C-alpha cells in the first residue's frame, strides 16, 4: 500500500490503547477521549504505559482537546486554517482513533453535488430491479451515519453553498430521507456519528458557509506553526516517514534542516512585512511546504545525486517549489538570496553551497 490510512499504520498502538482503556467512552467510540488525546499527542513516562506511543500531530494540546470534545457533543467539527497546517492529518488521526475508520471521506470540489453527500443510484440496477436499497449507492457520509462512525468532508468551502447546505439536515436531524423509496426510506444516524470537515482559510469568500451551517459546526482554527522547535519536529517526523516509505538510506544533516527552517522563517517574516501581494510569495510557506521541499531534495539526491543530501540541492528544490509566478516570486527569492543568504554565506558552512545552488536555480528559471 502506497499510503496506509492511520488506523492501519498505527493499528498496534490503537489495539494496545484499546486494551488498557478503562475510561468512559462516549457513544460507540473505540477509545475514551483521554486515550484519543494520548494517541494523537503521544505518551509521557508519567502516563505509566508499558509501551511508548509516538506523537503524531504537533501543535497546541488545546486544539486536540477541543476537537475531541466537539466530536463527543452533537456538533460537527470544522478544522480551519492555512494550507499545510495539518488539518487533514488531524482529522484522519481523530477518525482513526475514535472509530478505526478514517476513509469515509468526501472531497469538496466545485463539482461536488448533493449526491456525493447523500446517495446516488446504480443506474443499471435501477433499470433491472427498480429503485430499492440494493440499487442505492450510499455516500461516505451516509455510510458513516449508518455505522455510527466519523465521516470526513475535506475542503468544505470548495463545494458550492447549496451542496454545503445538504449537511444541515444531516447534522441537525441526524437522518437522511430517501423519497424515491416507498418504505425503509429513512437512514437514521447511529450513535457515534459525527462529521469532521476541513476548510482552507485562504478560500474564504469563495463559497462562504451559511449561518445555519456555521451554527452546526464548532470551529477550531489551526494556526501556522511558528515555533521553530515544533516545526523541526514535524519536518523530521514526516521526512523519516517518507524515507521509510521510499526505502531510502539517506541522512538529513541537522545543519541542513536548520538552513531550511531558517529560510522559511525569514521568508515568512518578509511576507508579513510586505505591503502588497506582489511583494509576497504566492506560497503560504506552511510546514507542509517545507516538507515538500525537503522531500523533493531527498528524492533528487537519491536518484540523480550521490545519495547525500547537499545544501545546493536543497536550495534548488526550495527555489523550484516556491517560484510559482514569474517574475514576482523570482524577484522576491532573488532579493532574499542577495540580501540574506549572501551575508550568511560569508560566515561559511553549508550556507555558501546553499547560496550557489539557489543562484543557479534562479538563473535557470529566469
Amino acid at each position: 500500500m502506497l499510503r496506509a490510512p492511520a488506523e492501519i499504520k498505527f493499528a498496534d498502538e490503537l489495539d494496545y490503547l484499546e486494551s488498557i482503556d478503562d475510561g468512559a467512552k462516549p457513544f460507540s467510540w473505540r477509545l475514551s477521549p483521554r486515550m484519543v488525546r494520548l494517541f494523537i499527542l503521544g505518551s509521557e513516562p508519567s502516563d505509566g504505559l508499558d509501551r511508548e506511543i509516538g506523537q503524531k500531530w504537533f501543535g497546541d494540546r488545546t486544539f486536540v482537546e477541543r476537537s475531541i470534545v466537539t466530536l463527543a457533543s452533537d456538533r460537527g467539527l470544522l478544522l480551519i486554517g492555512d494550507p499545510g497546517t495539518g488539518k487533514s492529518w488531524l482529522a484522519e488521526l481523530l477518525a482513526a482513533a475514535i472509530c478505526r475508520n478514517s476513509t469515509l471521506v468526501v472531497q469538496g470540489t466545485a463539482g461536488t453535488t448533493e449526491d456525493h453527500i447523500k446517495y446516488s443510484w446504480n443506474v443499471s440496477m435501477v433499470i433491472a430491479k427498480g429503485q430499492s436499497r440494493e440499487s442505492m449507492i450510499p455516500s461516505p457520509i451516509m455510510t458513516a451515519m449508518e455505522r455510527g462512525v466519523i465521516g470526513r468532508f475535506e475542503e468544505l468551502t470548495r463545494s458550492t453553498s447549496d451542496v454545503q447546505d445538504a449537511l444541515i439536515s444531516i447534522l441537525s436531524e441526524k437522518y437522511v430521507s430517501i423519497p424515491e423509496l416507498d418504505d425503509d426510506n429513512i437512514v437514521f444516524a447511529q450513535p457515534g456519528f459525527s462529521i469532521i470537515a476541513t476548510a482552507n482559510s485562504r478560500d474564504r469568500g469563495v463559497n462562504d458557509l451559511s449561518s445555519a451551517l456555521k451554527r452546526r459546526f464548532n470551529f477550531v482554527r489551526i494556526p501556522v506553526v511558528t515555533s521553530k522547535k515544533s516545526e523541526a519536529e514535524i519536518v523530521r517526523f514526516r521526512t523519516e516517514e517518507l524515507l521509510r516509505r521510499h526505502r531510502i538510506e539517506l541522512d538529513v544533516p541537522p545543519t541542513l534542516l536548520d538552513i531550511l527552517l531558517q529560510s522559511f522563517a525569514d521568508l515568512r517574516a518578509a511576507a508579513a512585512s510586505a505591503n502588497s501581494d506582489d511583494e509576497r510569495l504566492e506560497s503560504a510557506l506552511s510546514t507542509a511546504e517545507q516538507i515538500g521541499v525537503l522531500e523533493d531534495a531527498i528524492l533528487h539526491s537519491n536518484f540523480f545525486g550521490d545519495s547525500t543530501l547537499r545544501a545546493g540541492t536543497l536550495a534548488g528544490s526550495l527555489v523550484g517549489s516556491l517560484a510559482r509566478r514569474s517574475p514576482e516570486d523570482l524577484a522576491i527569492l532573488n532579493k532574499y538570496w542577495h540580501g540574506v543568504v549572501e551575508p550568511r554565506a560569508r560566515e561559511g558552512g553549508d550556507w555558501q553551497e546553499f547560496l550557489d545552488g539557489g543562484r543557479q536555480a534562479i538563473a535557470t528559471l529566469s
Partner: protein
Amino acid sequence: MSGFGALRDRLTDAAAAFAGGPGQVADILTGMVDDVDRALRENLEIFPVCHHSPASALAMARRLREKRPKVVYLELCEDLRPLLDELANCRLPVALQAFATDLDGFPAGAGPLSVVAPITESSAEYQAIAYALTEPGVELVLVDRSSDHVFQWMPKDGPGTAGGDGDTGHATADPAGEDAGLHGDAVGVEIGDLRPRFAELEAYLLHHGKVRHWSEWWDQYVEQPLADADYATYRQVMVMIGSLFRRLRPAGADRLDRDEDRERYMWTRMREHLASSGADPADCLYVCGAFHAASRVEEFGLRGSGGFEITPRTATRWSYGLIPSSHSAIEAQFSLAPGSVSIAAATWRKALRRGGVTPYTLDGKKGRKGGAGRAAPEAGVTDRLSGFLARPPEPGGLDEDELRSWCVDIVRLARRHGYLASTADAIAVFETSVLLAGMRGRARPTPYDFQDAAVTCIEKDAVPGKRDVARLCEILLGGDRIGQVGYESLPPLARDVYDRLEPLGLDPGRRTVQRALLNLDAEPHLAPCSKVLWMLRYLLPDGAVRPIMGSKRLGERSIQESWDVALGKYQRELIELGYEGVTVEQVLEQRLRRAAWDPKATAAGALAAVEDSIVFLGGRRFTDELGARAVELLSAERTVDDAPEVLRRMRRLLAYYRASEPALPAWCEAFVTTGYAHYCTLLPSAFTDEDTGVRQVGAMLGFLFGMESLALSLGCDRAQLELAVRQSHPERPAKVALLWAAQSQLGLIGRDDLRRRWDELLVNPLVVPSCPQYIGGFVQALELAPALTSFVVEVISKAFARLPDPVLLPWLPTLITTLREQAGDLVPALVKEAARTYPADLAGLDAWTPPWEAAPGRAPATAAPAASGPVADLLRAHPASCDALAALLGCDPAWPDAPDAPGAPGAAGGGSPGHGEAAALLGRHPAAAEALAGLLAR
C-alpha cells in the same frame, strides 16, 4: 522536636526509589521539609503569600481576625508607607508609585525612574493593610528596600533596562489591551512573586499539569486546594512551594543574590523596629512572599545574625503618589496570562459570597469585629503536609448553577457583540465545558475550561465585532477592572486642574471622552478653563485633551472652542505631572526653563520657548528672561543650522510685539542687533562652507535684509553687511545665485545684470546641467528680496523654455519636492506672480509675449510722481519739512506748479495725460462725484 520526621523519611525513601540512591534529589526533598519546619518555628509569625491569590487573601483575613496582631510587617518598599493611608479614597486596583526625574547617583539619561506596586482587593496585602489601617492601635511597617534601592540593586547596565529583579516586572512596551498600558514604563514591584525561576521548570510543570499557562497551573494545583484549607496547612504548603522554587533555581543567578539581599534587609529592619518599639514578637505578623519565607540567609529570624549593612539611598529626589491601575495592566506588567487577575478577583468574590470570611475593607467602615482576641500560640509544629500531598484535591471549580448562568450570560454577551449565538450555543458551551474538564482530569470545569468551551462553540471563522469570545469571557468573569484615585488622594496639581475645570461641568471620574463646548464671547468666565486646557494640551499626551475647534497661536484668540477631554483615562499622566509642581503654570514654566537652559539648547529652541511662554503663560518677566537667554544662545552659536527657524520665529515675534505692544522689548532689540552682527560675521564662511545648506544661507540673508531697517535704527552699521557680501565667494551654483540676489538687493548690481548673467548661463553648454541649482538659489533668494519674485518667474520660465530635456526632465521632480520642503511659504508668492505674468486663458497664450522679451519701448512707463492729490496738497500747504530735508540733502527745493483750482472740471487730471480717461468717465457720469463733492462741502 520536629513533627516532620515521618514525612522526611518517606521523601528520602521516594528519592532513593526514583533517583537510585540518596543524592541531590533527596537533599532537595528533605531540604524543603526542613525549610517548612524552620519557617514555622520562627518566633515572629511568618505569613507566606502569593501575589493576587484569593486563597492567600482568605487565609489572611481569617488569620488576622484570629490573631489580631499589634504590628504587621509587610514586604513592600518602605518609602511607600505614607501612601497607604490614601488608599481609602481610591477605587481599587490602584498602584503606589515612586517617581524620580532629578537623578543624583544614577547614570545620566536613565530617568525618569518609576516604581509601581499595584494593589488589588483580592490580595493578602490589601487585607493586611486594611486591617492595620482600620483597627486602632495597630502599626503597619513596610520593611522591604526603598524605591531607590530597587534601582541601586539593578544590574550594572543601568536602571531602566529590562529584566526582573526579585518580585519586579517591567511593563511591556506594547501592551496588548487598551488599558494594559496604565503603568507606563514603570518597574513593578509586587508582594509574593511565586513562579519557577527558570523556563524549563515552568514548561515541565505546565506540560505535566496539562495546562496552558502558569496562572492556570497555580489555580488548579494550589489555589483551589488551599481555598478552604486550615491555616497550618496553608502556611506549610506555601512555604514548601517557596522552598521548591528556591531550591530549583539556576546556580549563581544574580537575581537570587538580590532576593537574598532583600531578605537580609527586611529582617534587619524588623529587628531594628522590634528593638526600638519594644513590641512583643508574639503580637507581630510578618507578611512576605512564600519564596522569602523559605529563606536560608544568616539574618533570617529574630535570632539571626545582624551583620547586614543597609546602604544609604542616593540623593535622588523621589515623589510619591497613587495612580490608577487595572487588571490588564497588572497582567502585562508581571507577564501573567490575560484574564488571570480578573479570574482571581471573581474567585475572591465567589468565596466571599459563600460566607465564612468577613474581609477587611478601607471604604470608611471598619470590618466587623469578631473572634476573641489573640489566638492561642501553636504548641508545636504538626505535619499537615503529608495529608495535603497524599490526598487528592477537593473538587473545586464551578458549581452547576454558576456554570449554567455563565453559559447563558456569555451567549447574551456574544450576541450583543455581533455573534450569531443562540440558546443552543449556551447548551453546547455547558456540555463542552463539562467534557473538557473531564478530559483534563478535573471534577468540575474551571473558568479556563469554560473559556475554552465558549471559544469552541461560539467563535466561528471571523470576529464580527471588536472583541473575540476569549475577551468576552474575561469581561464576563469580572472584566478588566480599572481603578481610580479619589480626589482627596490626588496631588495638588491634579486637584487644582479638576477645580479649575469645574465650570465646564465635566465628570472627572469618567474614563470616556467628554466633549466640552466653550463659547468664550458669550461666557467669558470660561476663558480660564480654556487656558488650563491649552496648557494641558501642551503638557499631557495627545489623547488627554484634544481641541476639535479653536486654536492657540501667537496673537490669536478663539471665540469658540470645542474640546475632547479624557482626563479620567489619562489620570496617571496628570498625577505624574503633579510630581513636577503645584500648578500647571509652574510645571510649564519649569519645562520651558529646562528647554532653554538645556546644555544642548539652541537659539531657535529658546525662541520657541519664548513663543510658548507668551501663548500659555503671558507674563512679561519670564518671557524677557527666556528672550535674554535666546540672545545669549545666538551669540554663542557657531553654526547657522537653525537660521531658517530663527528667522521664522523672530519674524512672528516682531509682528506680534509691533501689533500688541507700544515698544519692542529690550531683548528683541538685543536679538536683532546681535543677530545682525552674528550673521554678518558668519556670512562669508557660510557661503563657502560645504556643510551649510543654501536654505540656511538664504535664511541668514533673509534675517539681515528683512530686519535691516530695525537693526540700522538700533545702531548697526550697514557697511558690515556690504563687507560681508563682498567677502563672500561661493562656489556652489545655488549659493552663487543667492549672492547675486544679495548684491542686487544691496544695489551692487542691477536687474539687467542679473538677467544677462542668467541668459549667459543658459547658452553656456558647460554650465547648463547646473542651471537647476541656480534656480534653487534664486527661489531661496525670495526670502531676502521679495521684489525679485517677478525675476524668479522669468528665470524659471526661461529654464523651462531653453533647458534641454535630459537636464530638465530629471530635475522636475526635484524642483517640486524641494519647493514643497524648503520653500513652502515662498511658493504662494511665486504662483501669484506667475498668474499675474501669464495669460489667464488658452486664447491669450498665442498672442502673448513674455514681459521680459517685450521691446523696451513698449514697456509701461513708470508713473510720474503724482503732482496733485491730497498728499501733494498737504505738502504744498506745509512745505517747511520738505524744504529742510532738501536742504539737508543738498537739493534745490523747487516746487512744481500747482494745478488750477481743485474741483474745476477742466482741471481734473490736467497734470497727467493718463487722467484724461478718468475725467471723461466722470464727465459722463457726474452723479457720484457730485454727491461726493456735496458730502465734502458739508
